[in-house]
């Protein structure tokens, strides 16, 4: 029986959610196909989260070295390549995060194992892994298989698997390992983390968010929508392109690289619903999406949808508020 290897992602002494999501999915596959679940941690000395990982794995391989406190693609690649060459895991799971995107493609070339990125589901059919991906910003799904190999690499989209509260306890043993001695020269050196998130508006505390996306068209329209938000007693927020174009500061941005929000109601004007955006609104009570495109992926997650021009709806809302 084969092995499923999960590369544990952690940052500043904490395991990232994507790790638990991967362990959960790997656990399901191991149960169904009698594989072994191994988690590999590349971490600093005495990381406090090892037990959390061990509970969910059959084995934990822990490379313990303070040079591994922070992520380093060069080091991870070297260590994982060595491990994979020795143990030849059937499937290796890595998060489709900024770090995963820096690691997985290079590890694929180094190990020769085929890679599928940003997968929302993993199946095993006739002993071969197959993946489901979303393409064209979520408008089309694709099922993909791999060229024959003895091992495969898969990166997993954050939020694709929801581990239940009650976990399936595996209580794996922890095997500690040292870093290999003959490490190559490091070409990248970590300096610091900086928080680009803080500002004078806190979108995470609002009961009502009026959020605008690229559909807003021009910078001038942002001011109008801000006015609408204020008149409704809510707070303005936005998707990434609005920040990229400098129409609003970063602290207005909702999504994976922005803020996670939890308003009672989230009004999305002209936002298509890319997963990086949707990841930020999983905590929203009710989502109402206004979009000209009836096939926009946001309608699959919204509670209410309006297929119309956002400006018409915004104007009508202003009218009603005047009357009321």
């Amino acid at each position: 029986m084969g092995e499923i290897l999960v590369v544990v992602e952690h940052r500043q002494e904490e395991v990232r959610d994507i790790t638990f999501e991967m362990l959960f999915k790997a656990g399901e596959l191991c149960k169904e196909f009698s594989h072994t679940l191994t988690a590999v941690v590349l971490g600093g000395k005495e990381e406090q989260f090892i037990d959390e990982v061990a509970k969910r794995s059959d084995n934990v391989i822990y490379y313990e070295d303070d040079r591994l406190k922070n992520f380093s693609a060069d080091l991870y690649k070297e260590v994982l390549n060595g491990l994979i060459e020795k143990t030849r895991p059937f499937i290796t799971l890595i998060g489709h995060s900024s770090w995963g995107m820096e690691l997985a493609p290079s590890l694929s070339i180094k190990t020769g194992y085929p890679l599928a990125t940003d997968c929302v589901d993993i199946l095993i059919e006739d002993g071969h892994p197959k993946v489901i991906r979303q393409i064209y910003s979520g408008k089309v799904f694709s099922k993909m298989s791999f060229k024959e190999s003895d091992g495969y690499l898969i990166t997993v989209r954050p939020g694709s698997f929801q581990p239940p509260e009650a976990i399936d306890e595996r209580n794996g043993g922890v095997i500690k390992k040292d870093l290999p001695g003959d490490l190559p020269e490091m070409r990248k050196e970590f300096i610091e983390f900086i928080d680009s998130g803080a500002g004078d508006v806190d979108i995470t505390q609002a009961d009502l968010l009026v959020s605008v996306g690229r559909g807003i068209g021009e910078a001038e329209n942002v001011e109008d929508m801000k006015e609408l938000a204020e008149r409704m007693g809510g707070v303005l927020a936005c998707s990434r392109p609005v920040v990229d174009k400098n129409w609003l500061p970063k602290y207005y941005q909702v999504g994976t690289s922005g803020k996670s929000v939890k308003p009672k109601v989230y009004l999305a004007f002209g936002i298509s619903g890319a997963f990086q955006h949707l990841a930020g609104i999983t905590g929203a009570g009710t989502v109402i999406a206004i979009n000209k495109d009836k096939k926009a992926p946001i309608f699959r997650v919204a509670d209410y949808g309006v297929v119309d021009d956002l400006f018409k709806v915004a104007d009508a809302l202003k009218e009603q508020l005047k009357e009321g």
Partner: protein
Amino acid sequence: MDIIVCVKRVPMTQEVDLEIDDSGKDIKKDALAYVVNDWDNYAIEESVLLKEKLDGTVTVITVGDEDDEDVLRRALAMGADKAIRIEPGELELDGFLISNILAQVIKGLEYDLVLTGVQADDDNFGMVGIMLAERLGLAHSAVVTGFEAEGSEATINVELEGGLDEVSKIKLPALLSIQTGINEPRYVSIMGIRKAGKKELNVVKVEDIGLSDEELVRQTIIEEYFLPPETEGAEMIEGDPSNIAEAILRILKEKGVSV
């Protein structure tokens, strides 16, 4: 600083009903309009800004057919000096194979920096850049939102999740995958594109770059494309804008939001 930028032309899919074609492994593309991949547009701008500051050359490169030359010409109009198109012929491409083809051609060029986009807006792989880096033996980083060169090194910002940035130093030559928002891409006029028509655009056939048939195979296989399963989805609010506005305000009240 000599910079190579990898670019891709992608279909615009907002506000269109995508359909699966007869093969079941692609979408119908005849009626779609195409643009430069958004992420690549930022990568091109970054390379031109660096050239303006530090001198050197910018070469843009794509693996694609003749129509894809549009994005090369657009990049030349933005300030790139040279363009290369690699004609794939009938090859079936995936990220793995594209990176192999790009590496083979880029190996023969002079460069201090290679830029790609974080991801292409069609297949959303987010893999070609870093695979290319590994093949070329380059230091690399993904999702880069800041770059400051200092001799043979550079200080870069990588965007992590949750509004956190990671600052590091990287040795050059390096490959960086560029994230949107790193700069403000300049406007390109039709006139500008016409003028740039005089710049060098070379076309190479994939058969002529020195890869064997065995090296020109993909590693992933599309089994099928399908439209998203019809889930329950949103409850649609119909009517004219004033009915819609009323309904939205009613929902707000129901959910305990006071307006």
